[in-house]
């Protein structure tokens, strides 16, 4: 066993898990509170990356890109809520899926028109581009930045949810919407805020990953399905569930990508193992979901509702 490799892969899996959490936490809130399935949540991830990339290109400052990008996605989220999502909370899930799928197409095409098909690279400031030596291990600094950024946002979200009045309302909304309404809260404004907050977190995830993978069209469409898996397995509306499951899926995905082919070679020919390994490691996430739902049909951490 190569311990250095194992530790590197653990770090990588935490990084992936936190990115997933940033996406999934907003998704699970929107899902839990508004009962709204937002397939286009991944579009905010993409828009975050593009906003940030444009600002970086214009100002040369990565941090300006992050700040302005966050504000931009927050307002974009608010706009989508106000224009479209709000009309649909009372409709059935099928309508949500249809409309938000339409939104994905619209966002992708808009990005294609505005930024072209080639994608946008986001240069990092030099001090983030290097590596850091910890004992015999070498980590790319930026990967650690992603981890700290993700943890910081998770921490802020935790404080917001557990320590503030707003958080109390959000928590209450996730488990019992009628209760919040009966408290005389302006439910429209709460929904608007939650939606925009979720969008901003997704956008933040996009900004974090874009310096590595570039901002590209449709970059959110693949990861959003994994984020949905996180939400479902974690239990709809459960931030805690989203956190644990995101880390778990990050772990499963990274570890299977790094060790599965060696393992499969014990069972099948090398050529077959090489082809099968990436597919099977991608499949494990779905196997996990199916198994969890088979035994716990409402996910691992369903938010406990007062009445049922």
């Amino acid at each position: 066993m190569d311990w250095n490799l194992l530790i590197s892969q653990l770090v990588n899996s935490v990084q992936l898990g936190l990115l997933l959490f940033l996406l999934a936490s907003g998704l699970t809130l929107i899902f839990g509170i508004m009962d709204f399935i937002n397939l286009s949540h991944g579009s905010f991830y993409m828009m975050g990356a593009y906003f940030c990339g444009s600002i970086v290109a214009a100002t040369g400052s990565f941090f300006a890109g992050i700040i302005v990008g966050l504000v931009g996605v927050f307002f974009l989220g608010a706009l989508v809520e106000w224009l479209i999502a709000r009309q649909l909370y009372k409709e059935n899930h099928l309508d949500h899926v249809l409309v938000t799928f339409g939104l994905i197409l619209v966002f992708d095409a808009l990005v294609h028109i505005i930024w072209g098909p080639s994608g946008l690279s986001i240069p990092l400031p030099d001090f983030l581009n290097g590596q850091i030596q910890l004992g015999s291990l070498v980590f790319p600094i930026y990967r650690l930045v992603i981890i700290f950024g993700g943890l910081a946002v998770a921490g802020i979200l935790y404080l917001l949810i557990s320590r503030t009045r707003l958080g109390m309302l959000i928590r209450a909304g996730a488990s019992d919407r009628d209760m919040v309404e009966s408290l005389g809260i302006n439910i429209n404004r709460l929904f608007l805020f939650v939606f925009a907050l979720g969008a901003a977190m997704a956008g933040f995830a996009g900004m974090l990953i874009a310096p590595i993978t570039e901002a590209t069209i449709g970059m959110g469409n693949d990861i959003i399905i994994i984020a949905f898996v996180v939400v479902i397995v974690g239990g709809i509306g459960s931030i805690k569930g989203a956190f644990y499951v995101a880390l778990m899926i990050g772990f499963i995905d990274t570890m299977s990508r790094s060790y599965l082919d060696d393992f499969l070679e014990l069972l099948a020919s090398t050529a077959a193992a090489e082809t099968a390994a990436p597919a099977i490691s991608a499949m494990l996430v779905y196997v996990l979901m199916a198994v969890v739902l088979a035994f716990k049909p409402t996910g691992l951490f369903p938010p406990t509702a007062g009445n049922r």
Partner: protein
Amino acid sequence: MINRVKYSLLVAAMALAGTAHADSVKIGFVSTLTTPAGVIGADIKNSVELALQHINNKMANLDVELFLEDDGFKPDVGKQKTDKLVKQNDVDFVAGYIWSHVLLASMNSVLSANKFLISANAGPSQVAGKRCHENFFSTSWQNDQTPMALGEYLNKEGIRSLYVMAPNYAAGKDMVAGVESIFEGEIKGKDLTKWGADAQLDFSAELAKAKASGAQALFIFYPGKAGPAFLKQYQQAGLQSVLPLYSVFTVDAISLPRLQKANIEGVLGSKNTQAWSPDLDNAANKRFVGDYLAKHGGYPSFYGAQAYDSIMLISSAVESVNGDLSDKNAVRDALRLANYESVRGPYTYGNNGMPIQNFYLREVVEDDEGRWTTKVVETVFENHQDPYASDCKL
């Protein structure tokens, strides 16, 4: 309402098909215009348009009608579009195809209709070997050849062990097979990563493995958008000093400007192999690259060069039969001669329609105007034929 729409669509489609001229050369061109890979398609489109401009949109005094189709990076869509070109537009030639799996899915539609298929990029081993066809010609290469050239160079450099990474699809497997077939050292490890519209772009786990493997060098094949993403992560992981990078079809005129923008200087000086380079010294190439630079402000990619050649190849055949496309045998014989000024210099065709051509080692350099581009260092293979030609029974 929808019925009326449907009806008028039907009428429109019929009208569209009815306008086809009898006195024109019809060329269908399939590439990828949407999805992030659309950036390749854009370069190809520019080059095809430039080629048509260079021949004044005429072949043997016939107007050229070009039907550009988008495969959406999906084999089944590519096949659907190919069927449309063959059946509705009744084209004489179908050219293009960036992706091997799209070509494999689509080729039967063209060949069984007794039309000519000119691959401007994809060169899967199946087409070169068992599934070869007399109406198939390539203006690119067979997938294995370029990595073979690289493997040859690695041997010469005395590199003894290698880690290999490529996307998990037809071309990726061919590339890996190509380098493995000729590399004499040890392959320390290999990763085939998820490809397609939702390709894997975060290579953290694989890079960590590659580094831990203790290999002397890293071989990769990451075309399109995955290339820059990979190179960035490679640099961020600080692997330049530990694990020198050798690539095929990854560092090109599409990725270099973006790498330059992102300050990925690690790529400067890196080596790759290719059958073409923008600095190749021949008249056709100078005209192509010069005009492309003037028109679009950047270098054309090898995709563009091959697409440009595909139009020129077709043109040469149409000219030689004086526009009489009904004589398929004559057209085929003319194509087989490759009697045109290719931007890669002269080459010939093997029995399987694959070029027999030179392969060069190229280095990434900065040109006089500060743009990053590639420059030929040496010729690795001369008049190289692909290894599958012997499997082809033509």
